[in-house]
């Protein structure tokens, strides 16, 4: 039965036959088909199962509002759940399977829910499954979760790629039906920059689905001709297959372009979809209208469809959904369906609610077989295989309410139209604005384009409009058929029926938000595009309020669901965030370094030598070699800020808690930076290179933040200070050279005299390295005689090689961040784990550094009562009493014999390392009244370890190694 329901006409290419499979069975369709139109052409009406009752379902619509015909499209890692067959463009080899049905679409075990429907009413689950409490997670919920959900993800990585782009225009036109085309022609001819976006793969909107004439030619032909004219305009960008997903602030719209979804797989180098951010000066919504159903018993069977969809399948796709058709309508547009279908040679029975006729029931388990009609007291059942339903048309106001504007009820068309307070710069035209005739669409499209461009100072002409029908909306609202005992569906996907709305009303869930949340009305993948207005109209009827009094829920982005991959674009996998590489990265790679992520940076964590099998071997060796002779470490990642100006010294006194004005030229000083709340947030050394010239270093983590805050201080707090800043983090490659032989090594590389006399401890100044300009700072994080040497970044790789070559005679090594961490803990220097944003200078044992003789950021509030608590946290050193005792960072301090409860909590271990120098674990920690507890014993307890780790520790000074600092002055 190949395409048994295909009839003449339509905008499909019959010369191109495409093969596809649905639920394993092969079919054929044509280019221009959707999956739904092709299946219907093959006589397949059953395409899915509903969410709750697992009712057999076919398509309700022919567009993106589809609630029922959801399938798994494609297979393997490309499987795409919940795909609307009504918008899935047919391609050769397409493979789709039904979802939410087991073992098969025709025989679905969970259809038992349909039999049990009387128990499964709205919100029944709130009233039961409560006893016994433990059964919820163990029994009830797993069953519910397994039964719920719709389609499935494969758990494989999405193999396709996605992109993002930015577009700018004078006028964005959303929708390319008669209104959108009219607006685009008007604006395009006026020379404005225009983007015309339409979610369909072919532009023309409803004109493709109608037999109406425009300007004396078939509407679809007229549309095609206008598209050709627009395509020839260089100032107009046509974007078919592009859905505007949301209106954001200031004329920014999100758009999803389906670049490759009409292909089996994207072409090589092409993305699947692109997310566009469109910056528009003005926008016109010409998104059309969506037909709404009428609720009557068993109005959900495959073959029951919106009347306009029935007509679209016939006119656009040459498909007769059924041979014997009934049309149930409350308005004249339904009659248009009847006449179009009759013109196609189909037998049509009209049931016009305005004449007292109504459909009271239907039959056909897997597809419509008959409808029962009540007509002025007479009941009859007629055989038919398709039923078109028209309850009127709802303008697609969605995007106009993305900024929370409420749509306004318009009695004349019995529908909501856009409110006045929609997104700034957006107006609506055509059916979206409630102008439901073709002439109305053409006229309002033109008028809105002219008005929008006039705002921008662009004059546009009102060309004569082509002749088109201008039939008034003739509707007599009918929302549901009263008096039935069975179920009449309102939200088909979520199985919300008239009874559910009645129950919600009975239980006082009468506000529209309560109705939605209690019954789940409008919360399915179609977001209530067909059901929402119907549902609230029913509620209005039940409560005796008018529809505008009852109100409407807010439409929110996105207009139609958007793939997560599209929203993420290229930011995934290793490309999630950019890599920042240090100047020695290539060299380190050659050495087989192990790298670690430090913010965006990759730094060498350690550099294993041949034969080393455990990271500790490498790290211990790096530490010992540095302390014994000399080690080199790339410290380029530290933030570097050049500060110049006659007020630079005064400026530093403002931003550092300690004194800087007294710093001599050619010297460095350690500085402590506070937030205004008195907490330490950064530290580093700043060198005075000249009278009015400083270079500041910050921690790696805070480089950006410190710079931002300095700019704030300079521009906002003290705007008259003569001080200029520039970040030079990327400009200088900087290496620490540390160890007893550091000077000897550097003397081989640096052109100048760097003897202790010429370059004393904390000295700083310009140098050259083989004639290349550089900087040298005699500062130490490791506690050794140490320098930091900087050269322009492009020489960084050369410098590390030169240092290693010069250091060969000293057995120089390069150490990574682990060894760096070991040495700084041995010296008791604070770093990230101690600079946690919750700690004051006093907590760190640096309280005296905060000068009260000057106004600096954070000084005043650092003196608040609780922050001066003598029993507050203090930084301490921690050593196991027994050398083999193990420590863990994050363990808490408990007094000996104290129970592990919060009242006894003494603080915690912040950083822990193994000290090869001391031959045991050591740690830093914040301990309550820690300065008073030096020399005492406590327990460091890690309750997370299995078994619990309890280590007897001695509280010591945080300066484990060379506390007098003799080595660094050497």
């Amino acid at each position, binding site marked *: 039965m190949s395409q048994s329901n295909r009839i003449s006409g339509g905008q499909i290419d019959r010369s191109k036959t495409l093969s596809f499979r649905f639920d394993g069975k092969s079919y054929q369709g044509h280019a221009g088909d959707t999956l739904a139109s092709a299946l219907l052409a093959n006589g397949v009406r059953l395409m899915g199962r509903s969410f709750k009752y697992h009712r057999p379902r076919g398509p309700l619509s022919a567009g993106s509002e589809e609630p029922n015909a959801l399938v798994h499209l494609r297979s393997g890692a490309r499987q795409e759940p919940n795909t609307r067959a009504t918008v899935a463009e047919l391609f050769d080899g397409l493979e789709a399977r039904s979802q939410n049905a087991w073992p098969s679409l025709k025989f679905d075990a969970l259809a038992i829910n349909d039999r049990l429907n009387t128990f499964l009413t709205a919100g029944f689950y709130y009233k039961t499954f409560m006893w016994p409490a433990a059964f919820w997670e163990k029994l009830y919920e797993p069953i519910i979760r397994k039964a719920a959900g719709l389609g499935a993800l494969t758990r494989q990585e999405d193999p396709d790629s996605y992109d993002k782009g930015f577009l700018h225009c004078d006028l964005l036109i959303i929708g390319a039906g008669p209104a959108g085309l009219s607006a685009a022609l008007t604006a395009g001819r006026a020379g404005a920059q225009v983007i015309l976006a339409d979610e369909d793969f072919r532009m023309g909107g409803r004109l493709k689905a109608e037999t109406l004439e425009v300007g004396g030619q078939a509407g679809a032909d007229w549309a095609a001709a206008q598209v050709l004219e627009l395509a020839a305009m260089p100032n107009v960008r046509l974007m078919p297959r592009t859905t505007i997903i949301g209106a954001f602030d200031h004329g920014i719209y999100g758009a999803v372009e389906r670049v490759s979804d009409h292909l089996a797989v994207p072409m090589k180098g092409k993305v699947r979809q692109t997310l566009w951010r469109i910056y528009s000066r003005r926008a016109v919504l010409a998104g059309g209208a969506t037909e709404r159903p009428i609720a009557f018993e068993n109005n959900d069977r495959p073959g029951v469809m919106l009347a306009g969809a029935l007509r679209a399948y016939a006119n656009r796709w040459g498909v007769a959904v059924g041979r014997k058709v009934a049309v149930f309508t409350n308005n004249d547009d339904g009659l248009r369906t009847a006449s179009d279908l009759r013109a196609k040679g189909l037998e049509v029975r009209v049931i016009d609610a305005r004449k007292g006729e109504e459909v009271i029931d239907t039959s056909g388990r897997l597809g419509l077989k008959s409808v029962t009609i009540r007509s002025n007291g007479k009941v009859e059942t007629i055989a038919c295989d398709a039923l078109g339903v028209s309850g009127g048309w709802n303008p697609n106001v969605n995007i106009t309410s993305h900024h929370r504007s409420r749509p306004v009820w318009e009695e004349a068309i019995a529908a909501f139209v856009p409110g006045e307070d929609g997104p700034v710069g957006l107006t609506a035209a055509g059916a979206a604005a409630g102008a439901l005739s073709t002439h109305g669409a053409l006229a309002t499209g033109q008028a809105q384009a002219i008005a929008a461009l006039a705002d921008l100072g662009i004059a546009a002409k009102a060309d004569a409009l082509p002749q088109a029908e201008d039939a008034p909306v003739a509707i007599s609202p009918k929302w549901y058929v009263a008096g039935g005992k069975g179920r009449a569906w309102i939200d088909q996907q979520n199985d919300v029926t008239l009874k559910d709305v009645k129950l919600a009303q009975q239980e006082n869930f009468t506000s529209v938000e309560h109705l939605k949340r209690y019954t789940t009305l409008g919360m399915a993948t179609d977001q209530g595009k067909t059901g929402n207005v119907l549902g609230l109209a029913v509620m209005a009827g039940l409560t005796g309020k008018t529809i505008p009094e009852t109100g409407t829920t807010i439409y929110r982005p996105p207009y139609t669901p958007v793939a997560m991959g599209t929203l993420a674009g290229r930011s995934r996998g290793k490309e999630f965030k950019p890599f920042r590489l240090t100047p020695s990265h290539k060299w380190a790679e050659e050495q087989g370094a192990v790298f670690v992520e430090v913010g965006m940076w990759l730094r060498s964590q350690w550099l294993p030598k041949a034969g080393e099998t455990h990271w500790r071997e490498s790290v211990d060796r790096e530490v010992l070699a540095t302390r014994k002779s000399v080690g080199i470490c790339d410290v380029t990642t530290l933030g570097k800020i050049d500060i110049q100006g006659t007020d630079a010294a005064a400026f530093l006194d403002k931003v550092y808690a300690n004194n800087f004005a007294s710093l001599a030229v050619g010297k460095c000083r350690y500085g402590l930076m506070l937030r205004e709340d008195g907490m330490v947030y950064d530290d580093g050394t700043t060198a005075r290179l000249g009278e009015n010239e400083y270079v500041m270093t910050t921690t790696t983590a805070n480089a950006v933040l410190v710079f*931002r805050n300095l700019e704030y201080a300079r521009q906002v707090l003290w705007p008259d200070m003569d001080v200029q800043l520039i970040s030079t983090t990327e400009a200088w490659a900087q290496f620490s050279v540390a160890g007893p032989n550091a000077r000897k090594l550097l003397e081989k590389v640096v052109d100048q005299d760097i003897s202790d006399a010429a370059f004393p401890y904390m000295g700083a100044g310009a140098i050259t390295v083989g004639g290349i300009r550089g900087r040298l700072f005699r500062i130490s994080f490791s506690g050794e005689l140490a320098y930091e040497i900087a050269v322009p970044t492009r020489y960084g790789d050369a410098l590390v090689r030169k240092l290693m070559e010069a250091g060969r005679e000293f057995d120089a090594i390069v150490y990574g961040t682990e060894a760096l961490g070991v040495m700084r803990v041995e010296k008791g220097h604070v770093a990230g784990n101690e600079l946690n944003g919750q700690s004051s200078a006093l907590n760190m044992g640096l309280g005296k550094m905060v000068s009260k003789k000057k106004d600096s950021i954070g000084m*005043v*509030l650092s003196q608040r009562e609780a922050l001066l608590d003598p029993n507050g946290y203090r930084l301490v050193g921690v050593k196991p009493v027994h050398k083999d005792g193990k420590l863990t960072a994050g363990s808490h301090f408990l007094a000996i014999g104290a129970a592990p409860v919060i009242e006894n909590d003494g603080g915690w271990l912040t950083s822990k390392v193994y000290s090869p120098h001391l031959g045991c674990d050591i740690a830093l920690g914040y301990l309550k009244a820690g300065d008073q507890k030096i020399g005492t014993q406590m327990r460091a307890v890690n309750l997370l370890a299995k078994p619990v780790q309890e280590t007897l520790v001695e509280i010591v000074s945080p300066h484990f190694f060379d506390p007098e600092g003799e080595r660094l002055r050497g």
Partner: protein
Amino acid sequence: MIINHPILGPRDSQEFVYLGAAEMMNRPDGMSAGIEEFHEWLYHRDNPAGEHRELWYHEQGDRSWLVVTRNTLTHEISRVELARDVAKAMGRSK
């Protein structure tokens, strides 16, 4: 959102970093003001529903701090100024 930078013209707000209310520009002087005054300045906000003057920093741009007047109900931006100019007009100097 789009911020119309007084020097650079319209820029996506993604290029900026937000700090908060421009009330914060009134930082007291630490040599004369005490804890209570600093506390009121640092911690309390008008937080209006409506017009709000606020500080934005053009981090991925020219590093200007801006005072943006924006409506917190509609997000409409009615004015953008260089924060340095505003600060000076407020009498801030060194």
